């Protein structure tokens, strides 16, 4: 049985969403522990989120 591409794209987007959610959550925790490092944490968070987002969009375009 053939699985439509859109299902795969959906799964990838779910994964990407969970990934970005985890990054955000972890960044919050990290900032909570070390508020003085918030600038660095934010930068790292945005970069990681952007990289994952790229995968999500690639999946959307493949579908």
């Amino acid at each position: 049985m053939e699985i439509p591409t859109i299902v795969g794209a959906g799964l990838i987007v779910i994964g990407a969403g969970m990934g970005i959610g985890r990054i955000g959550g972890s960044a919050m925790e990290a900032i909570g522990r070390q508020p003085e490092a918030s600038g660095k944490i934010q930068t790292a968070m945005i970069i990681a989120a952007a990289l994952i987002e790229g995968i999500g969009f690639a999946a959307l375009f493949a579908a």
Partner: protein
Amino acid sequence: MISKLTAYSALVGLLLFAAPAAAQDKDQANTIHEEAHLDTHSAGAPTTQEHAEDSHESHAEHSEEHGHAEFVPASDTEGRKSVVKKTVEHHLADSYEFHIVGPVGFPLPVILYDNGLKVFSSAEFHHGESVAEVDGEYYMVHHSKIYKTDAEGNMLKDEAGHHIKPLDFSITKNVFMIILMSVFMFFLFRGVAKTYQNSLVPSKAGRFLEPLIVFIRDEIAIPNIGEKHHKRYMSFLLTVFFFIWFLNLVGMTPLGVNVTGNIAVTVSLALMTFFITQFSGKKDYWMHIFWMPGVPVLLRPVLAVIELIGLVVKPFSLTIRLYANMLAGHVVIMSILGLIYIFASYTAAIPFTGLTLFLYVLELLVAALQAYIFTMLASLYFGAAVEEHDHH
């Protein structure tokens, strides 16, 4: 610093763009309900009509599709959906004329290479309705692309059965906007630079731009590239940041100029980043790609393959990220505005107008964020290229 930046840009953006947008939303709701007229977006009514005419193959088909005054009754949900879809598509597409609102707009030059250079005004297409005759050849716009036709407007085919498209170097709406923005940025930043000749305290536009420029230097370039090399890349990083940011903001205006949501533009930006990275690659950079130090020798060829794939994926992801983010933002905003038109009721208008305004403000944030991310990732790649390891 970041929060300050976003707060600034969101505030300025809000003042500049959200006010007219809100006014437009209201206009729209009024028009729809008082006249049940279609106006899914600021320029909705005229463009839809045009678009319907754009995409027609024959006039008979056109009048069948949409009737005369492009009026679709509220009960015809499917018809209204297709109108919204067409309006959205029209807004995202590039075009050969600069259409502002209603009948206001101006034609742009069309430059074709087809047995010699052919330059003429896009007014000859009459908004895509008629065939333009140039030096005995006939051209026509079909789905935002120029095709070669005969005098009656039938598309010509080559031996393989493909429609013939001349090589197209036209100054389209997007190209026009890029040129305009380049000129604007040149004079803006030259003016700002000049004010520093008299005093080190910024004045005029410099008051707003100095913190941003310093932010890019201190928070993006120096931490990622390093104190030693960052100066060489500052011009590129600053240009790319302001170019993307300004064009994103222009894209948010009702003009519907979707430059950064055009994949050709983002590909070019990403390719520039790619080539700058490769040409500034030092010994250590290539060593890390082809013969990774510090891992078992058997593993090194495998890593080389992965690194080579990574080399191509980096500009690709830069391209897709910017393109998809801007495109998705536009589509979402216009689709939600379109819902008002599809539902055709006051009760729908109120929440959807609010939701659009909310998304609009969010998009202003995304406009700045995408420019920031592009610059940040570019400087990361440059940093990896010039990095020197004192090792082993």
